[in-house]
């Protein structure tokens, strides 16, 4: 149990680490690469969970994660960025330093919250859930601190990866739920993609500030 637990823990920790890396990026190319890495680690973590729980449907989930989240979506986003000739620099709110510190604080917070609550659960899912919560929170933090629509999409996708991680850790998670989550993410991605196109067509930029001006919010 010790070794396999360590591996699961390591993979979940890697997820958090990649999330923090994601938080650090201020160029679109690097951001999408790290997002790809995030999806890859998620697929590995799910696969290890499948091995631990010897649940074949989790293997399917891991495959879906690998294909959709590590390959298709980041690739599509990259093509989108190229086709739209989006400015490569992402404007962030607040300096990178404070944001990183905030991210670390969020990890601490989620561990502090989750570990006492899940005392009854078994060790593997305990760690997984605590780390998954920090991935979700960091995803939200990414969405809040990016002015660029692509940055917000990346934040949203990493948040969803965190949810997937938590779901994979919980035993007996039905495949249907996993599939529906994956489908919903895909749909959300398509909607956001179309949305990006439309914004680009109209305003020649994907900077959300242009949208704000259009809505009459800039006063």
């Amino acid at each position, binding site marked *: 149990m010790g070794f396999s637990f360590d591996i699961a823990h390591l993979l979940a920790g890697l997820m958090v680490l990649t999330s923090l890396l994601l938080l650090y990026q201020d160029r679109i190319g690097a951001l999408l690469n790290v997002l790809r890495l995030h999806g890859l680690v998620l697929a590995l973590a799910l696969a290890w969970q499948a091995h631990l729980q010897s649940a074949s449907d989790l293997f399917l989930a891991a495959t879906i994660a690998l294909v959709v989240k590590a390959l298709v979506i980041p690739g599509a986003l990259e093509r989108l960025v190229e086709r739209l000739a989006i400015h490569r620099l992402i404007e962030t709110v607040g300096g990178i330093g404070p944001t990183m510190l905030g991210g670390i604080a969020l990890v601490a917070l989620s561990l502090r919250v989750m570990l006492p609550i899940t005392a009854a659960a078994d060790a593997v899912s305990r760690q997984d859930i605590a780390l998954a919560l920090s991935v979700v929170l960091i995803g939200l933090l990414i969405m809040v601190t990016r*002015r660029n629509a692509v940055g917000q999409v990346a934040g949203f996708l990493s948040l969803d990866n965190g949810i997937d991680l938590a779901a994979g850790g919980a035993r007996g998670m039905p495949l249907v739920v996993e599939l529906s989550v994956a489908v919903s993410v895909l749909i959300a991605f398509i909607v956001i993609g179309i949305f990006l196109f439309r914004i680009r067509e109209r305003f020649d930029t994907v900077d959300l500030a242009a949208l704000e001006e259009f809505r009459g919010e800039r006063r």
Partner: protein
Amino acid sequence: MILSALLAGILILVVLGLAGAIDAVRAPGGAPRGAAGQGAWLYAAAASITGVSALLSLASLAAPPETLVLPLGLPWIGWHFRLDALSAFFLFVVDLGAASASVFAIGYGRARHGGHADEPGRVLPFYPVFLAGLGLVVLADDAFSFLFAWELMSLASWALVLVRHRDPESVRAGTVYLLMAVLSGFLLLLCFGLLAGPAGSYGFAAMRAAHPAAATVALALVLALLGTGAKAGLVPLHAWLPLAHPAAPSHVSALMSGVMTKVAVYAFLRIAFDLIGPPSAWSGLVVLAVGGLTAVLGVLYALMQHDLKRLLAYHTVENIGIIFIGIGLAMVFRAGGEGAAAALALTAALFHVFNHAVFKSLLFFGSGAVEAATGERDMECQGGLIHRMRTTSFCFLIGCAAISALPPLNGFVSEWLTFQAILLGPALPDWGPKLLIPADGALLALAAALAAACFVKAFGITFLGRPRSAAAAVAAETDRLALAPMLLLSGLCLFAGVFPGAVIDALAPVSRALVGATMPVQGLLPWHSPPGVPLGAIVPVAAARSSYDGLAILLLIGAVTTLAALGARRLASHALRRAPAWDCGFPDQSPATQYTAQSFAEPIRRTFGPLVFGVASTIRVPPPGSTAPARIEHVLHDRLWEIFYAPPAALVRRLADALNPLQFLTIRRYLAFVFAALVLLLLVLALTP
């Protein structure tokens, strides 16, 4: 069995509301087809249903309680209904008012300036639903169905207040009314929540059986007083009445003023006497104080009005005060163990409930007839109507005399009974009631006297003198069907005043159910009265102490007037002379030289002005040589509004202004708020062990 029949009637009323809605949609307003008689079928149906229902409830007044559970509403609760003496009495009052208002509405719709003839589609769907709500409140036997019916009643009447929705005054009235109705429903919800206890037993039967802690009882009672007071019109929660009652069509005003406020009284009686159990003395004192204040302030505000329906609405506030004085006395006496005195006070309050429903409906019908005839509610535009609207003015006079508590009419009996209960106050050992009860007596006396002054003004300015406007000069008597309920209610005023013993005996089961005691049996009719009592008299406590004989007074008044009339005919000159009237060195006889409503109220305004109204008077004298008239201007402040309503409104506005920028944030900022809220909640979770 009777209960099922009553509920079936209410169901038919709801169906009628739907039919009215269909009718309104099919024949869109604006083009009144076939004169304004549209909807007569609906009113006729409503009148017959409520009429039968009134008779049924009268018959079941003395019957044992009857309960019924319908598998409707919340799935695990159901709808509980109960018909006991208290609900039977109030249902009778509700249905009596509803039946007469429905008949009046048929005639009112045919009249020239009828209040709903222009847009019947805004009245017809809601009117029967309003009636259904009124009936359901009284029959409900669990908190859920009670509150549902309560809100049904509020919402339907709100829609009726907004009939003239293009008039900004109506819109304001509707907004204030809706706010107060929401407040009242909310407070009652909290009250029932407290009474239901931690187990959440929302049936009234469970609440009756429970014995909550003293603090819970006190809080629930205060909530009940505020929640029902906001509906009944207790000062300072009365602000919506004078706005909303005039805005609705007259038959609805009559229902709102005469009946809906009584349903609120019912709710208070049900909670304070039935659900909570034996009241404590201090709560009775609070009710007494509020009642006395309401009575005097209501009538003072009424005196300052010159809109007939507004004046009547303020008088409703006054009469609610009188009713609550009776209820408060009953609570104090019951807490002090004086069963007979409590029964007397409660019977007086219930008698006044009946009386006020009768004469206030009558007066609103009269004001509706006047409005329909002249197109104006302002008294300053009326005058001389006694010649052109003979029956209406006669009925209105009866109503005025009754509400002014003049014998031999019914208003006198109930106020006299209240005074008899007040005179029993010294029997109580505590000092609090000993001091407060006589003070309330003084307030009640003041209110009664001022009410008489006010109705001299209302009747005199509206019906006497010469026409103050062209419309008043050519006014015609209203429709016969509108006169019929007025005559009926006038007859009831006289009947209940002359044979009060019958009413008191009919109220005995209610009094027995609520305070466990009754007044002495008075005998159904004068010649049935018990031995040792003067013929036809009512005796509140003991024959040696006080008694009142309505029939004797009626006969005396009749004899004296007949004699005086005969004497005048006999002794006076029979020659007909025509001479200029009111020509005391004043040859110009413009109607504008008559007494006005304002001038009538002037002495009272001077007396109470600085204290109650904060009057600011300015006299403007034109400079020498100028031909401009000198002017005197009074600005009346509604102190109660300024104290109780303006500050919360200002606070809400300030908060709304402060929060307004939140409506214009960027997507990212909204996300940040969500994020911050999430992190904050997690922090709370982390920091609490």
